[in-house]
């Protein structure tokens, strides 16, 4: 019999060309929560974030929702993942912080996937190393979120 399971789903949309909207959900035996983030593109700034603690274990868990709003104005850069875990996770909710990091990684990977699709349509035998080098040079702030290795 199954003792525990955790499911996480993240989706990324392109809206009005200048924005990316990332939505994530996490469900397991103990918790259910969701996170929605609007990111300005290509500035990579978090314009708006809303989190919802749906199912949790203590009456204090709801306090986390107010903590995550602090991320508005933060930029997707090399410091962000650490800030999410330390400033939001430890003062809010570690599980929501994990979901938010997954949302940021998915945003970076979605841009790479979109550009890769477009490049492959033009040239099916694309040099992937050159493609990646080009992508990294244009979006250095996203490199650590891509987790290609």
């Amino acid at each position: 019999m199954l003792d525990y399971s955790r499911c996480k789903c993240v989706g990324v949309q392109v809206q009005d060309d200048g924005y990316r909207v990332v939505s994530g959900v996490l469900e397991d035996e103990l918790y259910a929560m969701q996170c929605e983030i609007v990111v300005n593109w290509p500035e990579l700034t978090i314009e708006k974030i809303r989190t919802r603690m749906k199912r949790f274990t203590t009456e204090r868990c709801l306090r986390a929702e107010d903590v995550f709003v602090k991320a508005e104005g933060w930029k997707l850069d090399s410091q962000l993942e650490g800030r999410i875990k330390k400033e939001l996770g430890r003062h809010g909710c570690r599980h929501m912080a994990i979901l938010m990091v997954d949302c940021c990684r998915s945003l970076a990977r979605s841009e790479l996937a979109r550009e890769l699709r477009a490049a492959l349509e033009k040239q099916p035998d694309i040099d992937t190393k050159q493609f990646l080098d080009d992508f990294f040079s244009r979006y250095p702030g996203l490199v650590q979120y891509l987790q290609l290795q």
Partner: protein
Amino acid sequence: MIHHFQMNSLTTVEGVGNGTWRVITRYDDDLFSAELALEVKAPALDIRSARLDVKRDALNAARNLDQVAGKLLGVRVGPGMTKIVRGVVGGPQGSDRMAELVLESMEMLINAITVPEIRKAIEKAGVSLERNVGTSGIDLNDRVMGEKMVGLMSENPRLKDSCAAFRNISG
């Protein structure tokens, strides 16, 4: 609105007898798909077997990970595991992505072991939550741990100051 990109991850934890837990994490997105299977034995909670399958890698960017699974044998689920796994699996010559998968699997085993205790705590000393948070009007939190139980749990160094629930505990 149609998604331009989708990521799914599922971790399952299952007791398979003789004090052994099987933990399987599957990750899938548009670019990459992999599955990690660990077997962990109580009471030391050391990894007895590890299998890693990369099922899809659109960019062929993942390093050869043949050695990764073997390096995990003997690593224990518990204090210090983050540093150990990042050292053994991640880093410039390793795979940070795989290290994350391993750590996620180990964290979920800890959660699985914790669930019966949390269930007991809520059954014995749970409190009703005044605020109904469900926009649907359906309450998903009819009983949760109250201040007294949170105070007791916050004495655990792993939990103290770890999140909003275990910060600023009075008395």
